[in-house]
């Protein structure tokens, strides 16, 4: 700790309206280290990264680069200060060839080529149009482009996600060497295996604050999980349930068998029974979006089968899923609502969808159905003329009310409580339980682990596009869920931590899955 930090940020805060994305974040990176930045979803990682790289401006805080106070006003300023990010989304302009993309950022070509070879792509033609290059290679090119200008601090956001194993290995190797050569790397990852193999220290964020900086030593992942969870480690009360569950029905309502979607979802199998709320636990981008889209009929799976009531089904349009009784409530409310239309029209939208319902509407009957759904969800209808004037919580209720009114048998809820107030959250939990009580089934993905215990009967853990574990919710608590979400073996304590054995493969220790 004697060396002066290359980058030293303290007291960084950022508010979006009334919402504090960052309260008091600090991050100090020494020369020669690979520094992990960790935190649960919504802890403020991406906000901090955007501030450091000049994409957005902080409301408060001080950023020192090599001991000098710098005002990182723009990505270009960050670049001049020697801070370079590689984001999750490829940043090459798709319609230009690689060479033109390099010129655009003034990247020297020869070092770039050298790094590309170094990173395990010997045969790149820099005249290729970026659009024609596979995603995994594009990400490596992004990294090579950043390395070519020799930044002091390299910022890697989920660099190894979506990379095949051989490329990922090369990338990690290069990152490690970058650290050894006296530069620094900030490494954001959800994978403990990588972090243990690569990083020297980790800064942990929770609710917009830096809650700890730890040295990476074997067994530290327990401490990191604890830090990420904070005081919430107390086991939350599990709602009384189970009365409605009849295991005797035999045939599951929904069966998913070896489902694959592109490269994101590799092998997912599970059942969903009537009267059950099954929670999907996954970190961001582990394939849950694709899973829900495939079940909703929005995208076609590239392999595997979906069975509804024991019958294999193929969905080519959401209408097929809806006819099979599967209703999808997307996480982004703007995606589900016609914002300029009334509450009533939005709730009644599925009624008019089929060609045979294009005729005159039975207004009285529609009104009755809509009003009963509104009452059931207690939607505040003071501003019902246009859905866009409702609060976020009420908008979310409208998206659910639609399927209550349509009496869907299975509801696929994707992060329904994102960004809504606590009271409405409680109401939604209650509603989902009620639905299960009436024999409906719910598949529930949430980014807030605490909700899993409140709402779900069973937990399905997805990591890296695979189901890595399925267990009843009674057998778990929040730390266990967090560990599971990070792909750590369930129930394992510090002594058998994965860090003790860096060669251990995550999937080996849990459900058997096909080797990559």
């Amino acid at each position, binding site marked *: 700790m004697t060396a002066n930090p290359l980058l030293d940020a303290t007291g960084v805060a950022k508010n979006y309206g009334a919402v504090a994305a960052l309260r008091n974040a600090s991050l100090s990176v020494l020369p020669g280290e690979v520094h992990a930045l960790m935190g649960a979803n919504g802890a403020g990682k991406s906000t901090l990264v955007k501030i450091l790289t000049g994409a957005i401006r902080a409301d408060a805080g001080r950023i020192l680069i090599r001991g000098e106070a710098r005002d990182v006003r723009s990505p270009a300023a960050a670049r001049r200060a020697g801070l370079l990010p590689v984001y999750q989304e490829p940043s090459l302009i798709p319609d230009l060839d690689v060479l033109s993309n390099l010129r655009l950022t003034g990247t020297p070509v020869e070092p770039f080529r050298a790094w590309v070879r170094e990173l395990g792509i010997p045969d790149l033609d820099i005249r290729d149009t970026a659009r024609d290059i596979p995603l995994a290679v594009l990400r490596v090119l992004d990294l090579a482009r950043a390395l070519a200008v020799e930044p002091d601090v390299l910022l890697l956001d989920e660099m190894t996600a979506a990379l095949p194993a051989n490329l990922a290995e090369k990338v990690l190797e290069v990152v490690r060497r970058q650290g050894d050569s006296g530069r620094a790397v900030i490494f954001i990852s959800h994978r403990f295996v990588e972090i243990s193999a690569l990083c020297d220290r980790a800064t942990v964020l929770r609710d917009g604050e830096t809650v700890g900086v730890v040295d990476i030593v074997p067994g530290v992942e327990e401490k990191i999980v604890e830090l990420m969870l904070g005081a919430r480690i107390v086991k939350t009360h599990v709602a009384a349930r189970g009365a409605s569950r009849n295991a005797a029905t035999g045939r599951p309502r929904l069966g998913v068998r070896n489902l694959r979607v592109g490269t994101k979802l590799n092998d997912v199998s599970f059942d969903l029974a009537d009267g059950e709320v099954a929670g999907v636990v996954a970190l961001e981008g582990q394939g849950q979006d694709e899973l829900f889209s495939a079940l909703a009929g929005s995208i076609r799976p590239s392999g595997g089968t979906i069975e509804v009531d024991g019958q294999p089904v193929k969905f080519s*349009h959401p*209408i097929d899923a809806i006819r099979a009784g599967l209703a999808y409530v997307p996480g982004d409310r703007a995606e589900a609502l016609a914002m300029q239309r009334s509450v009533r029209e939005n709730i009644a939208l599925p009624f008019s969808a089929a060609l045979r319902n294009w005729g005159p509407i039975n207004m009285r009957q529609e009104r009755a159905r809509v009003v009963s759904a509104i009452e059931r969800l207690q939607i505040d209808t003071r501003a019902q003329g246009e859905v866009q004037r409702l609060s976020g919580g009420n908008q979310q209720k409208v998206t659910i009310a639609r399927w209550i009114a349509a009496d869907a048998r299975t509801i696929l809820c994707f992060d329904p409580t994102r960004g809504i107030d606590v009271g409405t959250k409680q109401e939604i939990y209650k509603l989902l339980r009620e639905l299960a009580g009436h024999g409906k089934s719910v598949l529930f993905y949430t980014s807030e682990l605490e909700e899993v215990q409140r709402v779900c009967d069973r937990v399905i853990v997805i990591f890296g596009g695979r189901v890595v574990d399925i267990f009843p919710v009674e057998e778990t608590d929040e730390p266990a869920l967090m560990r599971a979400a990070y792909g750590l073996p369930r129930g394992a304590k510090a002594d058998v931590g994965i860090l003790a054995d860096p060669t251990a493969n995550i999937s080996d220790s849990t459900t058997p899955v096909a080797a990559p």
Partner: protein
Amino acid sequence: MSISAIQPVPFGRRLKRFMADRPLIPLIILLVILVVILQVLRPGIVNERWIANTIKFAIPLAILAGCQTMTMLTGGIDLSVGTVATMSAFIMATQVVNQDPAVAFLLAMMPAVLIGLVNGIGVGVFRVHPLIMTLGTSLIGTGCLQVYQRTVIASGAKIPDFLAWLGTGVTYGFPNALLLFVPLAALIVFTLSRTGFGRLLYAVGDSERATRLSGVQYWQVITALYVISSVLAGVTGLLYIGLIKAPSLSLAEPLVLPSVAAAVIGGTSIFGGRGGYTGTIIGALILTVLTTLLTILQMPEGARRILFGLIVLFVTAAYLRIVEER
């Protein structure tokens, strides 16, 4: 809550809110103002005959503007209405010479249905932008009509008596065209507000993705929409030939852009999801009165067009400012 309701709200804001809640009122006021100006400039011009005449000329525009209203609700536009109207009028006038009127009618409506179908499939299935799609079919239609004129017709043209009666006739002071228009307008208004199809037009224009997730099949809605739009345009052509009585290859073409303007003035958003047909009807009346007004000013054609364009822009901008609540 009750206190703030009692507190006096500034008159300006109250007026604005009143207008925002009833978007038709400012339009009707504008229409009345235009008529008053006309009466002041030419005292005595506004009489029963003038009103009947204005309505007669406003009706074809209003029906075509109905096509624009419905397509614009979905975020589209139908620029082929002029060509479709011209085709059905021209075919009717030339076929009725040798054919039974019913057969001539069916022949006249055929290109309308065909072009509507092509438009609908192009926009709904192949996702061609409606502007380009309908412009393309419009050009193709015009070309076909030229070929038809040169090769098929040997005889002259004739305006069927019934169409002349419908287009120009007046009974007890009411234009006969209202017999067609009133039920048609009622049907459009009803369709937009009280049928599943109408709901879908608004919803698709607002958020196509949301309708898709609700199980709506976009191509079905769009195909049906453009066929309906084309059929309405075809009917308009038949009415218009009864009014103009001179078949030509560009009969209804001058109505296309005013039909778009009428819908926009009437408060239909070109980006979809907002608007209605009653506003469009008044928009068509406003444009028709405006044309008369500019005609009697005896300005040169160029100046008249410039003024027409300026007024349309001004009215649209002012209207949106009044109606949109911020």
